[in-house]
Every structure is written in C-alpha cells, then in structure tokens.
C-alpha cells in the first residue's frame, strides 16, 4: 500500500491504497463520495466523470496516482460553484433525469462545458456530451437543461 495525496473538493486527503486503484473506487469507497457512478469501468459511458482542474474527466480507469497534485471536484461539491449550481438547478427545472444513474456525470460534463464556453449553441452542447450515454432517454431534457443553465448564468 502507498500514500497518495489528493485534493478533493478543496480538501487535501492522504489516501492509503494500491496506487493502481482507479480514482472512482477511492472516491466511492474511501471518501464516501458516491455521487460519481461506475457504469462501465471502460471509459465508454461517462457516469464516472469528475472535474479535474475544472475539466470533466473520466476516472473509472485511471489510477489514483495520476490525480496527485490536481484539483478534483465531484458532483457533491458543485453546489458551491456558481456554474455547477446553475446546472443542477436547470436539471431539476427540466426534469432532466429518469433513473438518475447517468446524471452526476452529465452534470459534471455540463459544468465543464459551461466553464469553457459560457454560451454554447446546440451543437456545442452536444459535442460537450460526446463521452456520455443515457439509457432512459433523458437526452433532450439534458440538452435543454444545459441551454437553460447557460442563459441563467448569462443573466446574473
């Protein structure tokens, strides 16, 4: 076992684990941050996305060591982020989830997108969701929610 130092949601944490462990297991099991979901473990679905230095990043297959020294933010901390909070509010307003298993990843992707591009058009929104899947068919609502969040942020 090895000690890895991570910054998660603004807090510095020392994690004692096999450095080969993908970050998702550390978040979910060691830090009790279960918002990010394991959907595939293959970097194919987007359910595990977290923000790494502000950018949506899949963490189901990348060892925890790769995240040392970086700022990792999970869905649980987005309420404290202007963009993240607006995205969450917009998802609620649009009813943009059915089962919700894909949702945390999508909220992260949307936050990342809006941080990089405050006024994305529909194509830019879709491009920002390229790595994400939803099986319940919430897609149209998710796209609408991101448009709504962008407007909301623009109005502030």
């Amino acid at each position: 076992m090895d000690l890895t130092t991570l910054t998660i949601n603004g807090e510095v944490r020392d994690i004692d684990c096999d450095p080969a462990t993908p970050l998702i297991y550390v978040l979910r099991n060691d830090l009790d941050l279960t918002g990010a979901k394991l959907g595939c473990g293959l970097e194919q679905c987007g359910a595990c996305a977290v923000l790494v230095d502000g950018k949506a990043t899949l963490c189901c297959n990348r060892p925890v060591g790769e995240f040392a020294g970086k700022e990792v933010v999970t869905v649980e901390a987005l309420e404290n982020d202007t963009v993240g909070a607006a995205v969450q509010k917009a998802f609620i307003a649009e009813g943009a989830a059915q089962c919700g298993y894909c949702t945390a990843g999508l909220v992260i992707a949307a936050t990342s997108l809006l941080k990089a591009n405050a006024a994305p058009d529909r194509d830019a929104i879709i491009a920002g969701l390229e790595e994400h899947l939803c099986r319940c068919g919430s897609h149209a609502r998710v796209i609408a929610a991101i448009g709504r969040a962008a407007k909301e942020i623009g109005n502030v």
Partner: protein
Amino acid sequence: MSKSVFSSPSLSKHPGLDEWVSVGADGRVSIRSGKVDIGQRISTALAMIAAEELDIPLDRIDMVRTVTGEAPDEGITSGSNSMMESGSAVRLATATARRHMLALAAELLGVGADTLDVDDGLIQSRETNRSATYAEIQGDKAFEIDVDPDVDVKDPETHKIVGEKIAPLGLSEIVTGSYRFLHDMKMPGMLHARIVRPPHYNARLKTMNDETTDRLRQSGIEIVRDGSFIAVAGADEFAVIRAAERLFAACDWDMSGALSEDDVFERLTANPRESRPVENDGVPQDKPVPPLADPPEGAAATLEARYDKPYHAHASMGPSAGCAIWQDDGLQIWSHSQGVYFLRDAVAEAFDIDPETVRIEHVPGAGCYGHNGADDVAFDAALVARALPGKPIMLKWTREEEHAWAPYATATSMKLRASLDPDGKVIDWNHESYGDTFNMRPRSGPNMAGAARLLSGRFRENPPPEFIPQPAMVRHMGIHRNLDPLYVFPNKRLVKNLVRDLPLRTSALRTLGAFGNVFAIESFMDELAEAAGIDPVTFRLNHLEDTRGREVLEAVAARMDFGADDGIGRGIAFAQYKNLKAYAAVGVELEVNDAAEVKLRRAVLAGDAGEIVDRDGVAAQYDGGFLQAASWTINEQVTWDRDGITSRDWETYPILGFDNVPEIETILIERPGVPFLGAGEAVSGPAGAAIANAIYNATGLRLRRMPFTPDAIREAAMDA
C-alpha cells in the same frame, strides 16, 4: 367529491387501509405501495395522489420503501400497470382515510362532517372555531378499517397537486449526488464480491489452478464455489475485481455446447414451435391454428411482407447489484428487482427455506426497463452470503456481465399479409409472430420454476430442473402483445409462435412483443396505404373507430407537413398499448445523410394516458420512451459467436448518443377524472414504425429488418 371510476385489483388482496396508509404523531403521512421506482417516477405520482386526496402538502408524504412482508404485494412493477393498480389503490385508500378522519373530527368537534374543510392537515369546521389535526386524530394509531372501493374521491376540478408539473421526488438528491442507489450502500464489515463467469451459457468448470486460488486466499480473498458458480469476496472492491480476473484466467472450462451461429431469422420460422391462434381481442386459444386461406375473391390488391427485429439488451446504465446477509434468523437481501415478492419466493425455493425467513428490501438501481440482471445478481449475492454467513455481501455485476448475461428481448419475426378492396379498405388480415419467450422472470411454481429461472441456479452443483416456457395464454402477453391491431379489420387471422431451440437467454424487456408487432403493423399500414393510393393518416383513420385513438393520431398529423418538399423524410405511426393502456401517435422527421446514417430531426408525440397525475413524469415516459425506442430501431442488436456473446460493452453494443437527438414536441390529451392508463410503454412501438416510415419517405427504401444502420441502408439501396 365525485363517485370514483377508479378501481384496483391490488385492493382485493390487500383491503386493509393500514396496509397502504399511516399517519405519524408528527402529522406526516406514510404511503406504502408494492410498485417500485425504476426511473419512471411512480413514487412521485403516488405521493401526488395521496397529498391531493388528503389535502396536505407533498412534502409531508413519505413514500415507504417496498419490503417483503411489509408492503402490499402488487406483483411486478411492469406492463404499464402501476398507475391503474397502485395509483388507483392509493387514491381510494387516502380518500377512505380522509373520510374516516373527518368523521372522527366531526365527533370530536361536535359538528357535522359536511361542515369540515381540510387545509394542510388542519381540520376546521365552518360552524366552530375549534379545529383538529390528522395527527391528533390518527397519529400513530391504526385505522383498523378496510379501504372502501366505492368511496367518493375528489372532483378533478378541485385538484391542486394532481396534474401539475413538479420536480420528481429525489431529483435534487440525484443532481447533487446524495441520492443513494443500491450500489452506494455501505455496511460495517461489508465485503465486496464479484462473479467469475464462464465464457458462455453452456460452459462448465473443469478445473481451477490451485496455486492461484491459494495465492488469492493468502491475500485475504474468499473464494466461493458451488459447481460452476464461482465468486470472490473481500473488503477492498478493486482488489476483488482483480482477483476475479485472475481467477478467471486460472479456470479451465468445458466449452461444449457452443452457441449456434445459424442466422436467427431463419431459425425463427424454421425451428420447432408452439403455435396458437389469437382471437377475442388478443387472447391465445388452445386449439389448432386455422390454415392460411387464399386471399378473398374480390381483393383489388394483396400485399405480403415480413419484418424482423433482432435481440435487444436492457443494457442498464448501471450494472446490476445486490446486497445480502445470511444470518441464523434468516436471509436479508437488498435488491433493485421489479418484483421483490416473486424474487423472495424464488430465492427461498432455491435454498429450500421458508419464504417468511427471507426479507427483501427494494433499493433503487439504474433504470432497468424490464427483467435485467437485478434478480439474478440478488441471488448471486445470496449465494455468496450463504457461504460467508454473518457478513454483508455487496455483489456488483460488471459491464460485461450486464451486457452478456442479463436476459434479452427475443429476436422476433412478423409475417403479414393483407388484402384491399377497390375502395382501399382492408378486407383480410393475417399476422403471424415468431419469437422466444418473454416470460423468464423468477416466479416460483412446480419443478422449482422460480429457482430455475435465476441465472446462477443452473451453474450450481445441483441445478434445479430446466424451466421449459409454455406459450403465455393471457391477453396481450409476450409474443402476442399488440399482435391484434386496434383497427377494425374483418377476417383477422392472428397467430403467435413460441419458437424452440433459439440460442440466447430471453425474458421481459419494455413492451415485450409489442415493439416488433407494432413496428410490423404500422410499417405495413403505410405499405397498404400506398397500394391503395391513400395518404397514411387517412388510411389509418378509415380503419380506426376508437375516438381516443383518432384524437392522438390527428393531433400528430396536424403538426406534420407531409407535403413539404425539403429533403426531410416524414413518417407517422400509432398504437394503443395492449389495446388497453395509454395511446400514442408518433410523427418523425429525419434525414438519411451521405454516410447512410439516420439523423433524427424532429419528433411529435401525442399521448392519452387517462387522467394525468405527474404531468412531467408522463411526458418523460413519452419523450424518454421515444429516444430509447429510436436507439433500438437505429442502433441496436445483440451479437454472438459459438464462444459466447460478442456485444459485451458500449462499443460492441452501441446505443443512441447525444448526437442523434431530435427536437421533441409532446402533446398530452387531458382526461381529468378518467381512469389511469399507464404511460410507460405506449410510445415505443409507434416510434420504431414511424422511423421506418420516415426512412421510406426520405429514400424510397422500405426497411423491414432492424437495426437501420448505415450498412443496412446501403444494402437496401443496392437491392433496390
């Protein structure tokens, strides 16, 4: 108040009011239901119904988790039955509770019950200043009366909550990551477990390398084995995942019983089968199938076509998970099964124990859309828990297991023939459907019928006898769901064929046979309309007497510009789910681009689901159902070779992405006070057919075999 038109079969099994409703000392109201949340937001609708009847705010309602032995047994959450069964039961139960509490309040306050009003749980009389609360009258007390099936319910005109657009229960937790799925559960001393699956259905373990097992055991990994059922368990989840991979590499399998690689669509109509005629609005008959007669004398045209749909996977976003603990006094399971009572009985059957000693609590998982891996993994967890008593076992399937081992919707073939008279009226209709069973949920019965349908049962040292499915004979079940069209056709010959010896494990997936049948019927209707020289909407209306059906079809037609000359393909389709549940008409606009990809541009959905309770929830069933069905139609098919399933992840089983999402307009017909119809599956069949019809409109290519991939479109273009 108005006389109720709502009734529920659940009440005959669970008539006691206390089984459904209780009031706490704090005035909060608990509602119990046997129907569970699978992403369709049933608890939101039930809570809205209860709050409305009781005149309390929604946030004072607690929806109680469905637990065996505690919740009413309402069978399976399936078939779009939940609103009719549980929604109606909760409406009648809460109306009975309200009437009962008002009668007690009237006595307490010395006034007539008809002088009482309720606001926010506070009962006030127009004749006195005194008041009472639900909590004072009923807090922590049993009702000890039955639900009155004839109780007056609220007049829909007075509804303040029902029919509103509200945020579903749990959504704010979902977006902030605090919603707890089964996968997120944690318990002291909990061990993670993973299965070491054989390469395919029929492979069995020959030997396991002892060196590997010894090394794993030394590193703290528990190995559980019962025949060819092999699992590993340990405290660290990632270590367990790696142990499972190592152990798989150390296993030598007997690979005999390879999967048949024959063309499944040939097999569907060539293999041995059980055939039943379907009559009387969708009911299979226990008698020989009448032979297919020649087309009628006066036929101006006779058309024949065959439509095919491949195997589809549930492909839940979250691999299924189960948690279990085996203790001296019984077995406790946490599961996202759609039918906790059925699962309980099947698990008890498998272990030959008293079902009363098994307690299963429903905890939400990812959307399942039918019989996915939920039941199987719960049993897997129980098998491991039994071998490691006293320890909570959290067992999660992998992405590969969910794709390769959960049951599929069977491939189906639909053969249709119809004749038209000179006026373009159908005068003869023949439809035969072929498929494997949809009926493999673990429902206990003779010969261990429940245990036999749990996946890992058949890999144990002493497996239960193999379960041989029989043709389902219930109205609109399985292969013959929506086989009988809602249109008025004379001389219908309808046949269901349960086909034997097909290669893959199948069971219930959203809509069962209806998806294939409606795809076939509604594609064929367009082919007939063209032969008759009548536009598709008029042709349908000419054969449709059902006024509610006509209304949804007309609502979509009014929003589609079929005459436009803009390179966009337009298609329409319609069905009433099971000829009994919600209605749906679907209009689609799409393009087929230079890469032969189907690009969805716009969808118009019209629905009639009876009285609307959770407005946004109903809409989500239509728009979400459309997108899922579009994915089945355009993208999906399960693939395999002799060594097993080859569509094992999202790359090999691609589904619709965010890059193919149309603008969606959903119109819901208002039916206040009309019985709930259940909206969860109405749109799927029409969605598939509307896409096929729009592709034809765009390209002149009539695609009769799903999925409509670029390869399929290019092939059709070459054949054209």
